[in-house]
C-alpha cells in the first residue's frame, strides 16, 4: 500500500529493487509486486473478459506466471510492460477457449447469478462495458492500456508487438467508433466553447 502514493519515478526505482530481490530468491518480496499491480491488472482483465470472477482468476494466474518466469525478465522493458504482455497472452487464450464453448457451463451461469446479486456495483461500469463492446479485441487492449497506465503509443506498440503506426491507426479507428453514436454532451460542449464559457 505504501508504494502507491509515491511519484512515478520513485515507483519505478522501488519496483526495480523488488524485482531484483525476487530474482535472487526472495519469493516473499513478490507480494509487494502483487500489491502494487493488482488493481490495474485486474481492471485490465475485467474490461477485457467482462466478468469479475474470471478477472480475479486471470489476475492470479498472471501474477503466478510472472513469478514463475521472473528469472527470464531483464530490464529491456519496464516490469509493468512485461506483466501486461503476460496478461495479454493469458486473456487472449481465455477468450479463445470461451468462444470454443469450453466455459459455457461454468462461465455463463456464474455471470447470470452474479448479475442478479450485484446489480448496484454494475451501474458504474455498465456504461463502460457498452462502449467497449463496440471495439474489437486489439482496440480494447489499446484503450485499456492507455487508460489504465497512460502508456505512450510506443510503449503500447512494444507490449502488443505491433508497429507504433499501426497502434496509432487503431487508436484513431477506435476513437471514431466510440464517438459515432456518443452524442453525450456534444452540443453543450460546442456551445460553451464558442462563447468561451
Amino acid at each position: 500500500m505504501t508504494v502507491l502514493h509515491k511519484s512515478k519515478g520513485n515507483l519505478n526505482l522501488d519496483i526495480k529493487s523488488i524485482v531484483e530481490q525476487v530474482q535472487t530468491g526472495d519469493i516473499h518480496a513478490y507480494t509487494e509486486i502483487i500489491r502494487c499491480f493488482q488493481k490495474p491488472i485486474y481492471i485490465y482483465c475485467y474490461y477485457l473478459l467482462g466478468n469479475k470472477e474470471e478477472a480475479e482468476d486471470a489476475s492470479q494466474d498472471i501474477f503466478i506466471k510472472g513469478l514463475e518466469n521472473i528469472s527470464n525478465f531483464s530490464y529491456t522493458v519496464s516490469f509493468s510492460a512485461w506483466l501486461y504482455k503476460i496478461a495479454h497472452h493469458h486473456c487472449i487464450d481465455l477468450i479463445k477457449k470461451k468462444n470454443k464453448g469450453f466455459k459455457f457451463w461454468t462461465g455463463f451461469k456464474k455471470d447470470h447469478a452474479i448479475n442478479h446479486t450485484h446489480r448496484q456495483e454494475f451501474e458504474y461500469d455498465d456504461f463502460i462495458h457498452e462502449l467497449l463492446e463496440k471495439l474489437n479485441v486489439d482496440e480494447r487492449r489499446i484503450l485499456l492500456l492507455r487508460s489504465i497506465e497512460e502508456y505512450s503509443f510506443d510503449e503500447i506498440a512494444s507490449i502488443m508487438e505491433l508497429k507504433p503506426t499501426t497502434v496509432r491507426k487503431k487508436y484513431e479507428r477506435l476513437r471514431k467508433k466510440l464517438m459515432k453514436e456518443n452524442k453525450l454532451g456534444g452540443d453543450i460542449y460546442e456551445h460553451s466553447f464558442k462563447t468561451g464559457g
Partner: protein
Amino acid sequence: MNTRSKLEDKELEQLERLIRETPIEIDLVNRTMNKYESSRYTKQSESSRTSKKMRQRVMMITASAAMVFSFLFVTSLISPTMAATIKQVPVLSSIFKLAGDLGLQTADEKGLSTKLHTSVTRDDFTLSVSEVVYDGTRVSIAIERSHIENEKETLMDRISDIKLFINGNPLKSFAPDPENSMNGIIIKPGKDKDSAIIEFVDERNQGGRPFPEQFDLTLSTTITGIQDPLKIDIPVENKIEDYVILQPNVSRQYNNIHFTIEKIQFTPITTNITTRTILTDNSPVAELTMGIDVVDERGHKLKLSGGLGSYESNGSNMIMDHRYTPFESIPKTITLKPYIHLFKEYPKGEFQMDENNEPKIQYIPELEVTLPINSQK
C-alpha cells in the same frame, strides 16, 4: 472541425479516466501466493511421471449462484494445528430442508442424512457442520457460521478455498485422471447469509475410484482474513438402501451425433443419468453443449441439479453424468429428451434467452429415448 476533434479528445479522456478510476477493492496477495505454492508441489511430482493425454472436464452448474472452487494436489500435507475449540452448536432448522435441492430436503425428512454438531473456531470465526448426506452419487454438506450482526458478506463470500480429504487422501486422488482433475467442488447458498451447502461428486461412472460406503471426510476451509484453514472431520455414510441402477446401453443416432444412455441410477435423493456422446465426424464434442430433459409417463419433469463430463482435449467422445432431483417413486417409464442450447451470434458463446430468462433450447427428437423401468419392488 478543429473544435470537434478537441471535444472528442476531451470525451475520450473522460472515458479513459473513468476506466482508470474504476472503483474496485481487491486483495489477491494471499490467494495468489497460496496458489503458487500449491502449483509448485504439483509440478515437482509431474516431472517424474509419463505424460498422459489431457482430460478436459465440463461442469454443469444450475442458476442459483453455485460457485466452483479449484484445489490443487498437495503431496505433503501441512501438519494442521487443529482449531482451539470443539463445541456444541444448536441447530434450529435444517439447512438442507430450507435451502437444499428437493433431494436434500427429502434426505432430511426421511432420515437419510447424518445430523452433526461439529464445529471449529479460529480468530473468533466459528464454522460448523450440521448435516451431511451421501447416496453413492454425490456428497452434500450443510455448513454454517455463527451469526454476526451487520455482517455484509455472506459465508460464501468469506470462503476463498476448500480442500477435501477422504480417509486422509485428497479428493483429487479419486478422479479418473488425478493429474488433470478439474475441481469438482460446488458451493451453493444456504438458507441465509450465514449458511451454505458444499457438494462434490463420485466419479465412478467416468473411470474414477468410487468413494467408500463409509468414510472420514476432512473439510479444510480457507476463510478470508484468517491465515490457517479451518478443518473439520465429518463422518460420511451412505445410508441409502432403496435404490435402482439400470444399464440400458441404448443408443440413438442423428447426423453426426451418436448418443448412448449408459446408466440410470435412482436414489431417493438423486436421479443420475450417465450418457456417452460421440461425434462421428470427429468434430469437437465440447462445442455441442447438449443437455437432457427427464420426464416420467405422466409428463412430470425432473429439475436439473448439476452435471460433470469428461472428454479428451479436442476429442469427439464425451462421457457425462447428469444429476436431477429424485422421483417420488420409481416411475413406470422415463423419457430422456436431449436438447442443444441456442447461442447468440454476438457476443459469441452466450446463450439465447427466452421470455422467462431461461436459456433457449432445441430438442432433438431423433435422439429421444423412452425406457420402461422395472421396479425392484
